């Protein structure tokens, strides 16, 4: 057992923290809030130049070949700075294409993704389908060398700036994934407003016609790979939440150490100290169940149980930490000029992404062999 990040891992975090602190000013962020993209091009380019979009992609395609654990540590820093969520979406999209793409698709897309020149994003969820393959309504039909896609995908992360979508679609009795260029005729992208103020969208596919080469690997049998990706993304998202929770605790400690009422610093009041300690305990648990899950994923250990625990605990912990922070900040933390609200909104939203807290607990329950059906 060794719970300390290596020198190299510490350097990853230090450099990321320094970069983000310099880039992200309050004014710039308020400007980003008013853009369609949620960020600006120079920032995206600066992130690309650091190689973050290809950080965990293979070196052969221009990536850096980092492990999921190292990627998680980088993402912790993104969470600390509440970077535009499009960064996470782009990184996840790259990993998804690496996993699902055919050799041809990977050769064509991954180098550009690693450079930050292009972006793909996953499109799985629908109005009535989130975790269950048989509930998907979007369908792909194959005729000769042509595919035809019809359906509507919702909650597509950073869909507004994506160059292509990895669309999960019913294919006969199974599920296939199709790489759909955003520019293909019949594709309509509509932004959707979300709690976390990120840039999700609804993607409609009306008789979209594509060559057969758009079909990804494991046609008709891709659901298992999609589920594995959801697990990986849930664990990576936890890293973002851990970084965010760390930042919230830090700003709260600072605030109650400065703010005075009744002639005393808030931090001297016992009620305040109790709340801050609760935040710290929840965070420490979250940090280590998350790093444990990522370590296991990165080292090819069975990780299903640990990911479920990480997402259920960390999602809840970040939410509770932000709400306690509001109670301690009072009005000062309630305004949009204060960064706290970004954490608060993202925390609750993140609890819903890649499987909610309750869904992961049910997933975990299914691993406890409580019934004959679970045992199977």
């Amino acid at each position: 057992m060794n719970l300390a990040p290596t020198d190299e891992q510490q350097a990853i975090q230090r450099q990321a923290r320094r970069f983000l602190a310099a880039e992200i000013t309050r004014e710039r962020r308020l400007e980003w809030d008013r853009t369609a993209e949620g960020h600006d091009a120079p920032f995206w380019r600066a992130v690309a130049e650091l190689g973050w979009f290809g950080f965990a992609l293979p070196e052969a395609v221009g990536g850096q070949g980092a492990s999921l654990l190292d990627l998680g540590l980088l993402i912790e820093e993104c969470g600390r700075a509440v970077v535009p969520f499009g960064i996470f979406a782009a990184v996840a999209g790259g990993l998804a294409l690496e996993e699902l793409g055919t050799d041809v698709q990977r050769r064509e897309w991954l180098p550009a993704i690693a450079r930050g020149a292009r972006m793909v994003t996953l499109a799985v969820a629908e109005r009535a389908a989130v975790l269950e393959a048989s509930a998907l309504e979007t369908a792909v039909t194959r005729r000769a060398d042509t595919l035809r896609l019809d359906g509507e995908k919702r909650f597509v992360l950073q869909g507004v700036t994506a160059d292509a979508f990895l669309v999960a679609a019913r294919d006969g009795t199974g599920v296939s994934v199709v790489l759909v260029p955003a520019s293909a005729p019949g594709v309509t992208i509509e932004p959707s407003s979300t709690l976390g103020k990120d840039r999700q969208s609804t993607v409609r596919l009306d008789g979209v016609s594509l060559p057969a080469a758009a079909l990804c690997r494991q046609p008709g049998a891709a659901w298992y790979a999609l589920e594995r990706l959801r697990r990986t993304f849930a664990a990576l998202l936890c890293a973002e939440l851990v970084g965010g929770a760390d930042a919230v605790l830090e700003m709260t400690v600072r605030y109650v150490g400065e703010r005075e009422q009744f002639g005393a610093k808030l931090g001297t009041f016992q009620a305040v100290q109790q709340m801050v300690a609760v935040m710290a305990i929840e965070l420490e648990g979250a940090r280590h169940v998350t790093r444990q899950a990522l370590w296991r994923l990165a080292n090819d250990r069975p990780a299903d149980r640990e990911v479920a625990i990480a997402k259920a605990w960390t999602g809840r912990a970040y939410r509770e930490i932000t709400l306690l922070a509001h109670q301690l900040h009072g009005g000062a933390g309630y305004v949009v000029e204060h960064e706290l609200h970004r954490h608060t909104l993202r925390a609750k939203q993140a609890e819903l992404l890649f499987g909610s807290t309750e869904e992961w607990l049910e997933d975990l329950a299914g691993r406890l062999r409580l019934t004959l059906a679970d045992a199977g």
Partner: protein
Amino acid sequence: MRYEYTREQIAWRHEVRAFCDAHVTDALRAELRQAGNEGDGPLAKAFHGKLFERGWWGVGWPKEFGGMGKAAVEQYIFIDEMQMAGAPAMNLSITSVAPTILREGTEEQKAAWLPRILRGEIEFAVAYSEPGAGTDLAALTTRAELDGDEWVINGQKIWNTGAHTASHNWVAVRTEPDARKHEGISMIIVPMDAPGIEVQGIWTMSNIRTNAVFFDNVRVPKDHLIGARGMGFYYAMMALDFERIQLGCVGMLARLLEELKEVVRRTTRDGRPLGTVPWVRHALADLEMRVEVGRQVGLLNAWLIDQGVVPTKEGSMSKVYVTELNASFAGVGLDILGLAGQQAPNDESAPLHGKLQWLYTIAPMQRFGGGTNEIQRMIIAQRGLGLPRK
């Protein structure tokens, strides 16, 4: 980073587990249950004897005093496995008194006390609290005055658990009446057969006996004061840091959780298998998650000790987390058992032999004992996170 035991740690775990498989018998577990899980019956004593034979009595003690010199993570693994097996807990002599003598005692004191503790010849009760000094331990008034070569002790202790069976008492006394309240306390070893000691039993909600102990001109040799005069309060606090490795172990909860799952698998209620009831599934998954979080926090504490850190913040976190979890685990566990949860431990058909009830009754004590959880959170806030005191 490595979120997995090393090969050596895994081998150590297997070794402890194999020992427990061989020596923690159903009869021993039954004896423990009857004694309210306070392990001082004949089988528990015999089990402790076997630990001693193997040199496992002082797993974390240095080798020159007959211990194994194991690191904190290995100690954690040891205790975790013992708890998983349902073995009797190590007593306070080993977890609390001996490490303080080791760290603070003179060479003569170490030689005089440690081998006898290690051989199980003497056993300590711990006397800190007084009627007027509980959470505010430094307010204690039991005093010891030097008279020639002897300390003369007068006063009263309470919650002195084990004082009626122990051979010795580890007593916090005021020796420097003019010093500031935290700096006037010393630790003195008092043989329980010394004249002037009166022990009165107090029976608690969990059926565990504790005691009020009165000292009336009790005389002990001068060298029974351990370490430096006036440092007793700090020694007591440090001893709690050691205890927190043990307290942070979730082996017992992991065992109870496995037993609870097994009950759920075997139970049909109102015509449906209990394991299909959504709230039961949710509650068990929630416990599974929280036990795992507790394991991580406890291991973090142990690991930091091995890095040479005194993990005051993490030790307090682990104490708060696990004791709060014990309380809610017992409550939720009894909910899952339903009406059968009422069956008392002495009812042969009680599910889990009534252990959830036992946990339910000791959990409040764990939350306020050993430094209340509110004090622990203040330690986390002030010493861990640097919140202002004034």
